């Protein structure tokens, strides 16, 4: 089954992806993120037609604890956060620390 890529974030963030052909998007203006970002992200995560969700790393701060935990552990669809540099998402780093017992990301970046 073919799936689509979805983008969630501010209109400035999503426009570029729409220019590359992404049609699944949720625009949440910066001043409404605290109220509406949870809803938008949950909607996209529950959509079976979406295989990859793209978000800005900074937007994770606006999510509630439950939704953020879903975003960080979701595999279908997988959430790719950008704008965090080479270290990857914070959730992944925490998961590595918990599973392996060492902060591998920290060691590699030093």
């Amino acid at each position: 089954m073919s799936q689509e890529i979805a983008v969630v974030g501010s209109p400035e963030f999503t426009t570029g992806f729409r220019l590359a052909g992404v049609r699944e998007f949720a625009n949440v203006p910066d001043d409404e993120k605290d109220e509406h970002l949870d809803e938008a992200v949950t909607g996209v995560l529950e959509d079976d037609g979406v295989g990859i969700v793209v978000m800005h790393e900074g937007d994770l701060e606006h999510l509630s604890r439950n939704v953020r935990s879903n975003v960080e552990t979701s595999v279908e669809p997988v959430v790719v956060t950008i704008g965090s540099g080479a270290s990857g998402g914070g959730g992944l780093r925490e998961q590595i620390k918990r599973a392996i017992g060492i902060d591998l990301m920290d060691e590699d970046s030093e």
Partner: protein
Amino acid sequence: MAKDVKPTRKELMQIEDRIDLSERGHGTLEKKRDGLIMEFMDILDQAQDVRGELSEDYERAQKTINMARAMEGDVAVRGAAAALQEHPEITTESKNIMGVVVPQIESSKVTKSLDQRGYGIMGTSARIDEAAEAYEDLLQSIILAAEVETAMKKMLREIETTKRRVNALEFKLLPELYENKEFIEQKLEEQEREEIFRLKKIKEKKEAEEEAEKAEAEAEAEAAAVEEPVASD
């Protein structure tokens, strides 16, 4: 705990079988955990490279779209974005790494030629084309990152589960089984000692009874011998 165990030989044999199975399982799970961590290290290196590329592509894409916005205006960029007709699609196939099913994502229609984009050539400028191209490259990197990160997340989950199983066997189940085994062995030894003592006591009692009987019989015989001459007189 040991208090719930019946101190029987059958139970001891069952516990020994369970210890054997648990030790074998513990060894296998430890090997699986180590193997998964080795595989994970390879994927982690790959993920760091992919993340680096993703970061660079994102910066480049942002620069080009900001340039397009500055030169053409936000409305023109949004207009072009709304006109796109071809949409990128992904299909997922799976690959098995040490029992963990990880996805392999195939993408189509991500990179498009100018005429496939659908916003027309006349109404837009090269700045918008450059931005679209940069975002198409960014999407390719995102798809690669999604594949690697999904594999990482799945492997981390499996490592965590395996680690928990290994720890449960090592620190909970096996110590309990060893404790139960020791308890039954001690109880059985105690029962054996009691049995030996009882047999010894029975033997002593029997011997005492036999001696008493013998003494009685001898006394009777003696009494009979004394009475016989009296009767003959």
